[in-house]
Every structure is written in structure tokens, then in C-alpha cells.
């Protein structure tokens, strides 16, 4: 990129920032206030934590598509690394290995807690899945878990299970009148079912974003 284009880009960036700052400072209050609406319908959502209610009930459709985005990223990474062999993991220092071994049960426990807590307070499937994935990355760095090769059937099932369960529930609820229209009585149970599937699959997918790519040689 030449100097002129650089200069123009930086100039446009500065102008945009200035205009946005001015716009935010003079912005009047919003006409619609959704937190009130969320609180009003929270009792019918099946969970007590408003963010989880939005994520899995009121705007659950976003979340379903978002899981598809993750699967898609993983698929493309598999396409890119197709046919390449994983290099054996380098031996890590024993201190890290010991630490990783001790941390593992703790990590699984924490993921379980976050999943359970999501219904009432901060936490939920995404945080729990991320913790599981972090555990897998830690194990890999400690040399205790090899990089993954092309996924076998069982792994593929684990990767897609959360997505397919979510989709099946969404479609099955069509009988209620619309996609993802939970009956208030069973909403809590269905959301927990979806979140349990998502925790497993998101953990595997997020770990896969790392483990399918690391240590690969063309």
C-alpha cells in the first residue's frame, strides 16, 4: 500500500472516530427500553438469569446460527489441513505435565458448575465449553494430548451433537406455533438439555479450532 493510500485511510479513520464521538455525545435517550420487557417475561422463560434467557429463549435463534458459524469455521480448517500429518508433540517439562494432570479434574468440575449456574447467575454453555476447551489446549501444551488428525465418526458426533440437539428442539417446537417456542412449563428442562449438548460440542469445537491446526506439517 503506498503512502498516499495509507494517509487517506488514516485520515478517514480519524474523521470517522471524531464524527462518532460527537454523535454519541449528542444522542438522546432510546424510545424503547428492553430490559423492562425482559424482566416482565423472565418468569415464562424457564431460567432466572436474564442473559441466559435472552441467549437461549428470547433470541435463541441467533445462538443456534452462531453454533453453525463455529462448526463452519472448523469445517474450513479441516479443509485447509486435509491430508497433512500431525507432528508428534514436543516433550513438555514435567512440571507443566504435573500441573495439567492436577488441573484436569478441577477444570471439568468448573465446566459442570458453570453449566449448572447459567440458569441462575452468570455462566452457561459458552463459558463452560470455553473452559473445557482451555483444558484441552493445556493438555496439548503439556504434551499429554496429541494434536487431532482428521476426525473419526465418534468425534464428528461429539462435534455436531449440541448443534443437532438444538436444531431438533427448535424444529420440534414448531408444533407449539413457531420455531423455538418453548411451552413455559418445560422451557427450563429443554434449555438445560440444549445447554448440556452445547457445552460438550462447544468444548470440542473450540478445542478443535486449536488441536486440528497445531503441529501440522505440509
Amino acid at each position, binding site marked *: 500500500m503506498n503512502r498516499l493510500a*495509507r494517509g487517506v485511510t488514516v485520515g478517514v*479513520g480519524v474523521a*470517522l*472516530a471524531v464524527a462518532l464521538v460527537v454523535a*454519541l455525545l449528542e444522542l438522546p435517550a432510546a424510545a424503547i427500553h428492553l430490559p423492562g420487557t425482559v424482566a416482565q417475561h423472565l418468569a415464562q422463560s424457564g431460567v432466572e438469569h436474564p442473559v441466559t434467557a435472552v441467549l437461549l429463549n428470547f433470541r435463541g435463534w441467533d445462538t443456534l446460527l*452462531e453454533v453453525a458459524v463455529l462448526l463452519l*469455521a472448523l469445517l474450513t480448517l479441516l479443509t485447509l489441513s486435509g491430508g497433512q500429518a500431525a507432528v508428534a508433540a514436543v516433550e513438555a517439562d514435567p512440571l507443566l505435565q504435573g500441573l495439567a494432570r492436577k488441573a484436569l479434574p478441577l477444570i471439568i468440575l468448573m465446566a459442570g458448575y458453570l453449566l449448572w449456574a447459567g440458569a441462575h447467575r452468570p455462566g452457561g454453555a459458552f463459558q463452560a465449553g470455553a473452559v473445557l476447551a482451555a483444558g484441552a489446549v493445556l493438555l496439548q501444551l503439556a504434551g499429554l494430548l496429541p494434536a487431532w488428525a482428521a476426525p473419526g465418526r465418534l468425534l464428528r458426533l461429539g462435534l455436531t451433537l449440541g448443534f443437532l440437539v438444538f436444531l431438533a428442539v427448535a424444529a420440534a417446537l414448531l408444533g407449539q406455533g413457531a420455531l423455538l417456542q418453548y411451552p413455559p412449563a418445560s422451557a427450563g428442562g429443554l434449555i438445560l438439555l440444549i445447554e448440556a449438548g452445547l457445552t460438550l460440542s462447544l468444548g470440542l469445537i473450540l478445542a478443535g479450532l486449536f488441536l486440528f491446526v497445531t503441529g501440522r506439517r505440509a
Partner: protein
Amino acid sequence: MSTGLLYALAGVVLFALGAAGVIVLAHLLRKILAFNVMGSGAFLVLVGLAQRTGVPDPVPQAMVLTGIVVAVAATALALGLARAWHARTGRGTLTEGEDRD
């Protein structure tokens, strides 16, 4: 100035910084970093601006959670492409002649 508005203002600056970075920086890893800064800026605007009256709003918070997951998916994909490109050509940039890191 409320806490929400302050972070929203920081957000627009981060967004502009990141957006200019994605375009101006040559190295692919730097472009990916800049993209993440840009995304974080947009997320701060989304939540900060909605909460400028001081009331927490779960709707944009849930949207940002979705956004963070989408961003990590995009980052992983971009890094995968950058690695494959580097493995094939030995270069860290798309255009020739700017190959310093």
C-alpha cells in the same frame, strides 16, 4: 458522563483504530489482530451505549456473547488460512515487497 457512555466512546476509537489497521497493516497476523480490536470496539459500543443510563441491559450483553464466539471462529479461520498461505509461499503478507514483520 456515565460509565456506559465512557466505554462506548472508547469503543468507537478502538473501532476506528482497528478498521484503519486492517486496511493499512501489511502482515496477515497484524491484520487479524486489528480485526479483533475493531470487533471489541463495536461490542463496547453495543453494550456501553445501551447502558448509558446506568441500567444493565441483558439484550446487548447476549448479543456480544454471540459476537465474541463469532469473532473467535473468524479468527481461527483467518489464522488457518494465513498458516496455509505461509506454508505454501513462505510469505506473511498477500502483496509482495512488504514482507517484513
